[in-house]
Each structure stands twice: as structure tokens, then as C-alpha cells.
């Protein structure tokens, strides 16, 4: 019982620290996913991000929705509402400006990852 509890705590801490590494890249992740998938709704974005990172990136509602609403207010996202069962689903998709922003941010992040790779493993990048 004690061991199980410890394991859960460690998993939680591990998850938090891994999530911490993704901090600052959330909007780029969202833009990239929308660029790939066309249109997605909030829950779908969180689920897909988790799937792609094998559970490492657990986007909470408190981070996801303010980010989506901010992107929408900035004019990068357009919304569409669809009736699903007895509820209304809000789909997000990139606008023309959003597409440009996604390309720009993805290029920026790729450059950052490349630089980080050079820094962490210079031999690999030289080879």
C-alpha cells in the first residue's frame, strides 16, 4: 500500500516535471495539431497531445482553454459549432493568419530544438 502510494506520488511528480518542460510551447503544440488535423475541439486536442507524447504532455483544462481563447482573440483561430448528441461542440481551425503564425512558430521551435540538441550533444550534431 505504502509502496503503491509512493509510486503514484513519483509518477505524479515525474509528470509535473515533464509537463514543465513543455511549458511555453503549448500554443505551438496547439497550432501544429490544428495545422495537421484541420479542425479539432478542446478535449480532442488534449487527448491527441497526450497520445503523441505517450502520456508525457498532459494538457490541463486550465491551460488549454485560456490558450485556445487567446489564439481565437488574436485572430489565429476560427470556431465552428456542431451539435453532437445533446451538446454543442466547438471546433477550432486555423485562419489564414493562424496558418502563417503556425508556420512561423513551428520553424522557431524547430530551430530552438536544434540548438538545444547542439548544446546537449555536440558530438551527435557534428557527426
Amino acid at each position, binding site marked *: 500500500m505504502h509502496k503503491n502510494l509512493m509510486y503514484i506520488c513519483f509518477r505524479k511528480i515525474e509528470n509535473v516535471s515533464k509537463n514543465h518542460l513543455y511549458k511555453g510551447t503549448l500554443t505551438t503544440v496547439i497550432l501544429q495539431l490544428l495545422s495537421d488535423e484541420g479542425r479539432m*475541439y*478542446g*478535449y480532442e486536442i488534449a487527448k491527441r497531445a497526450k497520445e503523441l507524447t505517450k502520456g508525457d504532455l498532459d494538457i*490541463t*483544462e*486550465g491551460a488549454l*482553454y*485560456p490558450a485556445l*481563447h*487567446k489564439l*481565437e*482573440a*488574436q*485572430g489565429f483561430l476560427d*470556431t*465552428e*459549432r*456542431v*451539435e*453532437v*448528441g*445533446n*451538446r*454543442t*461542440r*466547438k471546433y477550432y481551425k486555423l485562419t489564414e493568419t493562424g496558418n502563417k503564425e503556425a508556420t512561423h512558430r513551428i520553424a522557431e521551435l524547430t530551430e530552438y530544438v536544434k540548438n538545444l540538441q547542439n548544446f546537449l550533444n555536440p558530438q551527435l550534431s557534428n557527426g
Partner: protein
Amino acid sequence: MDKTELTTEETSELVHFLKSWGIDEPILLAEMTDHYSDKALEIISTGKSLEEVLNSWRTKSMYRTLRQIDAKYKEYAKKDWRRRHWRIFKELITPRNVFIFLLSFIAISFILKMKYLSGIFFGLVILKAVGIVGFVSYHYTFNKLKRRLYTPTAIGLLWFGNYLIISHFIRVFEFPEPVVSTNSQAIAMTTIICFIFVSDIVFFQVWKYITKTTNHITKEMLTEWEIPKPE
């Protein structure tokens, strides 16, 4: 077999839960309901009941999360509103529109000097006023979603504003026998009429643009979902 959809009663329970934690904006409420319905269904598939799921969500952390989402939503909604208005304004102030405005200004200036035709413009102002009030009242009565926008105060002000303009015209220009004797009177009157027309066009453009994104929300969302909380 896994449950794929919450029943209307369960959805209603979830909506009441979200409302009790401060989510009151219809669009955000719909989005959160969809999100937490999916989340609840995932937990329900492990053998829990919706009641247990909701109880497990009654925490300080959940409260903070929802408050944060709500606060940020309102903050960004304001920014979005300003951005859209600024965009409409930029779209309206085009060389073409300015040219049309100037042309109409000159045309009305000439027309106002003719007794018979000037009456038509007063008639148009009255028709427009009645039209706006009718349009607003119609939506206020039949579209529940827009109630928060079409408030009685807004309708009252709209009517009162038009009434003031019309009554002012009648008093100053002795309608239906308008006396537009001097050029300055004609210019002043034309400016006011043009201003009324342009402001109404802007009003409708803005209105159309704002409601475009909210039109898809169905009546059920605000009627069926607002059934009394289940015991």
C-alpha cells in the same frame, strides 16, 4: 458496452455543476459541458456513476481551474470584441465607401431644398426607426440567446434616440412642410441624416458580425439544459 453519451438529465446535472462553479457565459458553458461530458464518460466507463464523478470534482483545485478559465475567457472575449470592431471599422473606411458617402451627402443636400422630396427622407428616418425597433423586438422575443444583448434598456435607448431625432426634425424644420431656407441649415440637416444612415449601417454590420459566431448555439442549449436540477 461503454456509454457513449450522457442522458439529457445527466447533461443537465453537469451544466448545473458547472454553473454552480461560476461558468455563466453561454458559449463557454457549452464548451465546458462538452469537455467535461467527454471526461465524465471516460471515468464512467471505469465503472463509476456520474454522481461519483461530480463529487470527485468538487474540489478547490477544480474550482480554481474553472474560475481561471472563466476569467480568462471574459478577458479575451473583450479583446476579441475590440479586435472585431476595429476590423469592421477598417473595412468600412475604404476609399469606395468614403466616395459613396460624399456623393450621397451632395445628393441629399440638393434634394432637401425641394419641398416634396424632403418629406420622403423624413419618412425614411421614421421607417428606419420603426424597422430597427421591430427587428430588435422580434429577436428579443424569439431568440433567447440574444436576450443579454437585447436588453430592455438597449431597446428603450434605441427607440428614444430615434424619437428624439425625429421630434427634433419635426420641431425645427416644421415637418411636413420643411423649411430649409439657408445653405447652412441644409448642410446641418444633411449631415445629421447621413450620420443616422451611416451609424445604422455600421450598427447592422457590427451586429451581423457579432451574432455570426453565436447563431449556431441552439435554443435547446438554453431551454432544455435549464431544466430544474434533478433531486
